[in-house]
Every structure is written in C-alpha cells, then in structure tokens.
C-alpha cells in the first residue's frame, strides 16, 4: 500500500519493549477497524442508490483505507519484525484480526450501512479528537489529527442521513429503527475495556473508555432523538470478542476476498 517511509517523529513509546505487546495489539485494533469498515463500505462502489451516495461511500472507504495504512504501518514498526501495513492487512488470518464485530457485519441495506457508519463515526470522532490532543505518543497523535479531519466529514454526513431517513417516510423510518435494533448490541464492544485498553490508559496513549462511552451516548442520543428513533437500553447485552480475535463467521469471507490476490500470488504489485 505505502512505499515511502514516514519521517520518524521521536516517540519513546514506539521502542518501549515492556509496552510493545499491548501497543501493537491496540494499533492493530485501530487499523483493523478502519480496514474492515473500509472494505465493507467499498462494497457499495458502483451499487449506491444514487450517484452522490455512491461517490460519498467510495470516498469514505478510501479515507478509511488511508487510515489503515497509517495505523498498521505504525503497528509494524512497533512490532519490529519487518512486517509493513501490507503484510499485516493481507497476510494475517481471522484470529489475528482485532476489529470490532460491529464493523464486520454484512453491509445490509443503506439503513444498516449508514446506521453502522453513524454509530462507529460518533465513537471514532470522539476517540481521534482525544488522541490528537492528549495521547502521550506523538506518533499516535499525528495520525489521529490527520484522520480526524476526514472523519469530521464522515460524521457530518452519517448524522445528516440518519436524521433524514429516520425522520423520513414510514418505510425509511422502519428500516432505520430495524438497523438500530440490529446494531445496538454490537456497540458495547467499543467501550468494554480489557487488559490492552487498560495498558494504553496507564501509558497515557489512549483514553478511558467509560469516559468515551458517556460522551458517545449523549451525542448519539441527540441525533437519534432528532431522527425520531428509539435508542435501545444502553445497559443491554453486548456482543464481544472481536478485539481479542474471536470473530463472527462474516470476517472470514471478507478476508477471503480481500486477501486472495496476495495469497495466490505472493508479493504481487501494481
């Protein structure tokens, strides 16, 4: 994906051996969420319901693939075994992927696609804003600052569409409510901490997820209310496991498609 080395902004976290396993895992989570959602979003290319939405989805997917290059590129540096972003994206098997279950679910209809993007973008925007201003890792914060500008546009568009379709016709409202009910149990994973998240908080690299959750709930509720949609119980059941490599059956199919070329023709390039 990327051939040119990033200039190495000084960052002690990148070579901190004690931090390395958790930091690598966390960077894979950042990169894999962008990669898998980017891939799902790209599935709409040429199939969007109207030209403008087709173009918007393709551009959003492109931004996410750009973020993937930055996060997985840094993950490879931190790991220190010579793997670059391409090696991590194309040559890991499903159990090594660290994305949320939310982003690997099938794209569904436009309601599912846009509701998922909205729920993820609202989280993504808050997270990147925190990272760009507060992360103790300069490398993390410069990637976040770059991605944040693009994600601002994603969130604007997704919020706008959720309101328009939620508060639209009876049919669009029903589809958006169905999408919300389907996806909501997958949002809890974004805010459920494990030892990797706790190590990142201790190192000052990433924010406390409970703090993020309360902000996310407030901003999501505002938009859902405007969209006349009913948010399910926030304390309800949460599907977990993606961050630790336990995925739904859907991820394998994504990887089969995405990784086929590099698996069949190792090292193939444009």
């Amino acid at each position, binding site marked *: 994906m990327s051939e*040119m080395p990033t200039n190495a902004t000084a960052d002690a976290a990148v070579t901190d051996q004690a931090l390395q396993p958790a930091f690598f895992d966390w960077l894979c989570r950042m990169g894999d969420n962008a990669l898998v959602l980017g891939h799902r979003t790209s599935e709409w290319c040429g199939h969007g319901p109207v030209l*403008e*939405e087709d*173009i918007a989805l393709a*551009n959003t997917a492109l931004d996410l693939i750009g973020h993937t*290059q930055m996060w997985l590129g840094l993950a490879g540096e931190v790991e220190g075994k010579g793997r670059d972003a391409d090696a991590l994206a194309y040559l890991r098997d499903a159990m090594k992927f660290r994305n949320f279950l939310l982003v690997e679910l099938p794209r569904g209809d436009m309601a599912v696609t846009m509701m998922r993007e909205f729920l993820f973008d609202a989280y993504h925007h808050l997270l990147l804003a925190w990272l760009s201003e507060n992360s103790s890792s300069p490398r993390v914060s*410069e990637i976040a600052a*770059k991605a944040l500008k*693009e994600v601002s546009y994603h969130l604007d568009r997704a919020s706008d569409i959720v309101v328009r379709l939620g508060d639209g016709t009876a049919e669009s409202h029903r589809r958006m409510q169905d999408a919300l009910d389907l996806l909501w149990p997958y949002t809890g994973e974004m805010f459920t901490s494990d030892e990797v998240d706790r190590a990142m908080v201790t190192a000052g690299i990433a924010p406390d997820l409970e703090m993020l959750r309360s902000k996310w709930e407030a901003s999501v509720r505002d938009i859902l209310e405007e969209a006349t949609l009913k948010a399910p119980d926030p304390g309800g059941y949460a599907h977990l496991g993606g961050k630790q490599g336990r995925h739904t059956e859907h991820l394998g199919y994504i990887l089969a498609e995405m990784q086929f070329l590099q698996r069949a023709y190792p090292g193939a390039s444009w």
Partner: protein
Amino acid sequence: MSSALQPEAEEIWTWLAEVPDPEIPVVSVTELGIVREVRYEGDTLVVAVTPTYSGCPATAVIDLMIEEKLREKGVEDLRLERRLSPPWTTDWVTANAREKLRAFGIAPPVDGTASDGMSAKAARLSGQNALTVACPRCGSANTERISQFGSTPCKAAWRCRDCLEPFDYFKCI
C-alpha cells in the same frame, strides 16, 4: 554530487513548482502546499511531502512525479519523506492557485473555515449553506451544496441556482 555543486534549496523549490497535481494539473504541488520542506542531509536531498487526504490515490503518483522532475534536473542523491504533522489544510493553498482553480471550473476553498475546530464547524454546518461558495462559471453566490463528497477526496459537489450548472468545490479541511 559534491556539496559545491548542490543546487540551492531555493532553486529546488522553483523546480518543484513545475510539478503539476496529477488530478488538477492547473496547480502545482507547491501551490497546493503539500511540499513541506526541502533540505540536505549530507549529500542527500530530502524533500518532505504531506498527503492531502490520507487515502488519496494521487499521493503515490505525486511522489513519482517529484522524483522524476528532480532526476531530470540532475539530482542523484534524493530521498522523499512522508510528513503527517501538521496535517495538510486547504489554508495552505496559495492565493494564486485559488484563482487558477476558479478559472479551471473548481470553486476554491473558502478562507478561514478549515482549521476552526469542531464547535465552529458544527455551527457552520447546522446553517447548511451558511458559507458562500461562488459559482466558478457565472460568479453567482446563489449556489447550493449537493454533497460533501465529490469526484476526488478533496472536492464537494455543488450546483449554481442561476446558471444551473453543477460544479466542484475544493472543500475545506
């Protein structure tokens, strides 16, 4: 190349000003503000380039074109460096380039709306078309946004209500 024969950085900048953006060839990479630094490390010329959008497919082409130009000018010892920070902003697009964009049919970015933070941005966006983007064809301010996303990552789709033409707007980031 011995240091006595090293071209001055100022001269390098004038060469880089001859490298067009591959997608919008009327403006150069220096006018877009994506060349961030030109310096020597010993005998090696280092050119730092920042991407416009992180996934922009033109980035790799731009690197190739910069390298090609500098090789053509006789630079042998060269390294390109990707710089992420500070992130590119449309505020860096030069005044001259904005005029060229307009003449090319692309409405240039509106000043002062790029790095104004989220709250200001939210307020602006809630007013929908609160920012005035003039039609690059007829000059009318009676325009409307069709989509924040356009033919390339850096553009949005707009329409003129007077001459009825759709046009690209180089959106602020």
